[in-house]
């Protein structure tokens, strides 16, 4: 994490120095990002030094080893989060704005309920339909909020 932070800080400093200077560098748009870059670099350096001193390098190497990465990726929690995030990506980036909000919400809910085995198929379908209709109606007509 410390190394990532240091790399990010270098990127931040280079970007900041590349920003236009109007009067003096003190009121330039890049001044504050440059300060942030310096702060991140110091924080990153402290993290790296702390990790090296405490002997965490071995632990990091072990954490990023092929076997460990496979174990983490195949863990039930990881799989669950990846699949649930995938459903959200399809809903947010794929369906919203392309199909009607109510239909998109229904499809997202039923897919998620079925994957999580929240309840039976029939109940999942009923809850999905009722929730999608209710959310759409309440926000559009009761709160006068436009739907995406």
């Amino acid at each position: 994490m410390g190394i990532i932070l240091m790399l990010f800080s270098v990127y931040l400093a280079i970007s900041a120095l590349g920003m236009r200077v109007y009067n003096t560098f003190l009121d330039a748009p890049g001044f504050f990002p440059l300060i942030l870059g310096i702060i991140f670099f110091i924080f990153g350096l402290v993290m790296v030094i702390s990790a090296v001193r405490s002997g965490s390098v071995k632990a990091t190497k072990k954490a990023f080893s092929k076997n460990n990465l496979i174990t983490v990726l195949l863990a039930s929690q990881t799989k669950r989060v990846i699949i649930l995030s995938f459903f959200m990506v399809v809903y947010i980036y794929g369906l919203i704005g392309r199909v009607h909000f109510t239909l998109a919400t229904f499809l997202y809910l039923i897919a998620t309920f079925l994957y999580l085995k929240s309840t039976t198929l029939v109940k999942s379908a009923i809850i999905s339909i009722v929730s999608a209709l209710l959310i759409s109606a309440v926000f559009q007509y009761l709160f006068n909020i436009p739907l995406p």
Partner: protein
Amino acid sequence: MFEAFAQQFTLFGSAAAQAFAYPQIFVTMIATIGGIVVGAIPGLTATMALALLINLTYSMQLSVALAFLLGVYVGAVMGGCYSAIMINIPGTPSAAATALDGFILAKQGHGGQAIGVGVIASFIGSIFSILILIFLTPFLYKIALKFGQWEYFLISVFGIMICGNLSTQSTPLKGWIVGFLGFFTAMIGLDAVYAYPRFTYGSYNLMGGISLIPALIGVFGISEILSVLQEDVPYSIESQLGRVLPDRAIWRDILKTSIRSGLIGCGIGAVPGAGEDIAAWVSYDVGKRRSKQGHLFGKGSYEGLASAETANNACVGGAMIPLLTLAIPGSPPAAMFLAAVWLHGIKPGPMLALESPEFLYLTAVTLFIATVAMLGFGLLLTKPMVGILKINRKILMPIIVPLTVIGAYAGNVNIFDIHMMFVFGILGYILRKLNYPMAPLVLGIILGPSADISFRQALMQGQGSLIPLLGRPVGLVLMLAIAWILIAGVRSNKRAVPASNSEGESV
């Protein structure tokens, strides 16, 4: 003197008339009940609820919006005690300390009285903090008026540093990193001085900057949903409640503790970004050390339960003090509240006393009504609430996702905001997994723009030199405070390294 007092009294009366009018009082009560239910359900936090509801208040009158949001806030912070006591899972992070004694009391068959103590302690804490809010804030306005650009920059950095220090369980460095990451997030978009695009990569959507509300919904909504649904842990409910109202002996036990915890909670609430959970833990720790029966803490002590519950609700009023005087929220839910009042054209800060002088009293009276409603409904709803705790989270949490989508979209009516909300949700989830706290990130996003402009303008005033700025007394105090936090943080970082070594801290 008398004239000033009479003027404040008139403002108070006018604010009270607004808060007690219909529909405000009705909205406060309904919102408080809603908040209690939200707080009781594990996974739904006060912060998440407020983030989702901010945009709903857009078309409301200011006093109605306040009633709605403060009702939910007060109710949700207290509501967390139901699940903490009955199922040993805190409904909100602020109720984590409550579970230590509450669940043991529930297993002993005293769940009803434990909840009763929780509700009454929350009431005492809230009332305490409202009184401090009313009497202390006008004096702080006067101090805040002496703040210049340099002091505003320093108070922003102080907020990030102290919040980073207090909100992390491992090293303060993690809190500071996410705090400054929040500052960076606030840099994205057109520069406020020259309208120069920073980190926009040619995207017109990014030129408008990262909208605050979608980012907050992502960090507290999406990441929370993923965190709750990743685990498949069923829980059992202690359904034997017993009587709800505490008996005289319990009253005697909790009274002194509640007063002390009210002060602690309010004080911690006034620290930028610290929040209800920290208030509860600190108060619990102090209570354990100061009480004659401290050895019983963690073994089913009403005193322990009261110290945690009084402090977390006292934090609500405390968090409003820096929010109203300096526009710096004292806790993550208060950050949501700040975003909501900005939406209504109110600009908290030292000028608030001149621009909207009755806003302080309107907030305080609305908080008072919500607190009384919380006491009444909290005690009345104890038995039905046990039924609500049985709601299947695998059904509830997915239904919240469309609500986050609408919440992110409604402010600017822009699909891009929904996309950013999801990005922040995933970022929040990853940071949580790596034990990075979320409160400093939110504070950083909120304080970033003013820190940037204040710093640059202060340096311009000093004609490029820091030396003229160093002699300012308030600034000097703030610099010393920042240096002290930094030194304390570095020391605790050194202590935390051996511990993190065993956890496999990554390079």
